């Protein structure tokens, strides 16, 4: 649009009075010709510009006595496929997109509207009025938009109500392959039917933006993970004709995540092996000790030593058996089987189970009351094992302390989107070097009683839920173990499980 076009004569236009024959004065048409926000030019059959308005002059420069193709396009001959030529022949209105040169020699893009001027009905067209309007800004915007659409580092598709892809950007086509005339579920997921839980369907229905995590299959048949946003492509919520699907590829991130988990798993295996070695070394010490003592007993013909050594051998052989059993149950890598459960009930089960045992030892086992905790997807068996381990450790810690009255408290609560269980005891606490070794190698501080696998198994189950475990302890004061499960992760795991 020409910058110097104004509407200051608008009021005079409305106040026009026609004379008694219904004819408006020539000045009006001249004024109109000058003021319209277009470049106006009138050409004759020989392509001479016979009249043009100020806008035209401002845009294309000198025009008097020149040919239109010279002025518009700086050519020395009529344009190939000249539209004006055709309009002179058939008298039809034509609109076309043209490129030319403005008065500064810069490339110009404009839309031309050609209208024939016929002096009388039935006569041939003498003049054509050419109304053109600069579209360079629009063109640039279009190009930018096109570039953005094609090159933006995400996948964009537009689908209609039948889930047919009507547009897709370069990035999407490169990864997912040909989209021509195909349904979105065919291209995104190589399916024959509409996806269950389709987010686009939701957007068509409610007209709002939906976010979801999806797994598709690219053109090479590999899995592609992407975060998808579906938005309505219409201002009218009640009548959405198209949905635009924009997604970010997170395959690489997912892969990294997997690698990290794998590395952690390997590290855990390494630590487990180291821990196992420690347990076996202790048992070996007992067995070698038993042999040594039996040997001395035989040497000295001493029955007491013989008995003592023999007992040592028996004891440590039994330890081997129980260690192997625990180890096998630890090594069983099973995925958590998540179901919606009330965390409070899991805690209650543990209290029912251990309350009496603790009471007999003079230890109070209690649940700290807090706000009601919403259901969460958890593996009830796994969490039961974790709580069992933590509570029995807490009871042992109280038993080993000199304090007469021990107390173990379980708490479950939600904070910052995390479901948290805590098990605290008023027992003997731990010093720094024990705390440091707590989860790295599985050891036991319970002498002959423990195999040192309880906490390791606990940590493993928590990690499988996408959670973490932390411990605070003060020597002589007691310890607090925290199991922290981000609810978002739990829900993601639960959804993944449902999709499988």
């Amino acid at each position, binding site marked *: 649009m020409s910058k110097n076009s104004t509407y200051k004569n608008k009021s005079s236009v409305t106040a026009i009075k026609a004379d008694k024959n219904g004819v408006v004065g020539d000045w009006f048409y001249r004024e109109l010709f000058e003021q319209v926000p277009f470049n106006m030019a009138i050409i004759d059959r020989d392509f001479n510009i016979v009249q043009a308005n100020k806008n035209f002059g401002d845009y294309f420069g000198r025009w008097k006595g020149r040919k239109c193709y010279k002025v518009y396009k700086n050519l020395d001959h009529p344009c190939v496929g000249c539209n004006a030529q055709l309009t002179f022949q058939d008298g039809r209105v034509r609109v076309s997109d043209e490129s030319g040169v403005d008065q500064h020699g810069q490339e110009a893009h404009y839309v031309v509207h050609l209208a024939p001027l016929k002096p009388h009905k039935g006569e041939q067209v003498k003049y054509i009025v050419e109304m053109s309007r600069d579209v360079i800004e629009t063109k640039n915007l279009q190009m930018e938009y096109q570039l953005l659409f094609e090159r933006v580092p995400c996948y964009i598709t537009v689908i209609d109500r039948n889930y047919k892809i009507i547009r897709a950007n370069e990035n999407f086509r490169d990864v997912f392959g040909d989209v021509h005339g195909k349904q979105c579920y065919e291209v995104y997921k190589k399916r024959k039917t509409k996806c269950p839980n389709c987010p686009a369907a939701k957007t068509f229905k409610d007209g709002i933006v939906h976010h979801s995590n999806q797994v598709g299959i690219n053109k090479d048949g590999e899995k592609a993970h992407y975060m998808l946003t579906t938005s309505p492509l219409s201002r009218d919520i009640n009548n959405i004709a198209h949905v635009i699907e924009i997604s970010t590829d997170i395959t690489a991130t997912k892969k990294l995540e997997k690698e990290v988990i794998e590395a952690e798993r390997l590290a855990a295996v390494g630590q487990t092996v180291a821990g196992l*070695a*420690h*347990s076996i*070394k*202790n048992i*070996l*010490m*007992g*067995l*070698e*000790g*038993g042999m*040594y*003592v039996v040997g*001395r007993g035989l040497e000295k013909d001493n029955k007491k*030593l013989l008995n*003592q050594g023999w007992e*040592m051998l028996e*004891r*440590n052989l039994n330890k081997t058996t129980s260690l192997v059993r625990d180890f096998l149950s630890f090594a069983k890598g099973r995925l958590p089987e998540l179901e919606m459960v009330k965390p409070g009930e899991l805690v209650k089960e543990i209290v029912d189970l251990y309350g009496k045992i603790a009471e007999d030892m003079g230890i109070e086992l209690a649940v700290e009351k807090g706000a009601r905790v919403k259901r969460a997807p958890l593996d009830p068996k796994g969490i039961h094992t974790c709580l069992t381990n933590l509570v029995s450790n807490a009871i042992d810690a109280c038993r*080993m*302390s000199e304090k007469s009255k021990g107390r173990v408290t379980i708490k479950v609560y939600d904070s910052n989107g995390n479901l948290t269980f805590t098990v605290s005891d008023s027992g*003997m606490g731990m*010093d720094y*070097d*024990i705390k*440091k*070794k707590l989860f790295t*190698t599985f*050891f*036991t*501080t*319970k*002498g*002959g009683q423990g195999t040192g696998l309880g906490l390791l198994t606990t940590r493993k189950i928590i990690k499988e839920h996408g959670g973490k475990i932390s411990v605070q302890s003060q*020597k002589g004061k007691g310890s607090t173990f925290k199991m922290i499960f981000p609810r978002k992760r739990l829900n993601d795991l639960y959804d993944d499980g449902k999709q499988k």
Partner: protein
Amino acid sequence: MSFCLLWVIWIKIGRIWMTEKKVLIIDDEPDVISYLTVVLESNGFRPYSATTAENGFNLAVEVEPDLICVDIMMPQESGLSLFVKLRRESKFSDIPVLIISGLEQEQDFDFRKFVDSEDVSPPDLYIEKPIKVERFIEAVRKLTSSTHVKK
């Protein structure tokens, strides 16, 4: 060679002349206590034992041993924490201490990894479980001999 022979003879003479050296074992595993007790007795030492760090410390005050052998992983208080306590007690600051544990291999044991108090010097020796009797006895002899000079 001849030096070795002389040394053996000297030891034998020394045995007759010297009173038995007192060795205190602190380990929460009763089997370790039984084992080391028999080993030490068979080799002419007088063993004392305790199953917790605290009892070990009290016993040390009572019998003033020539050497203390202590395990690392024990309930309530670890052996290293007891070791630090002994080193900081002027009465025991020079007593030789032998750490016996299955935690780390002998060449990998790094005392500073567990205790970063600079004022405490590392223990005299670390021996890995399960012990080799000859090596253990040799270490005990060395650490209890009057020629053993503290680092």
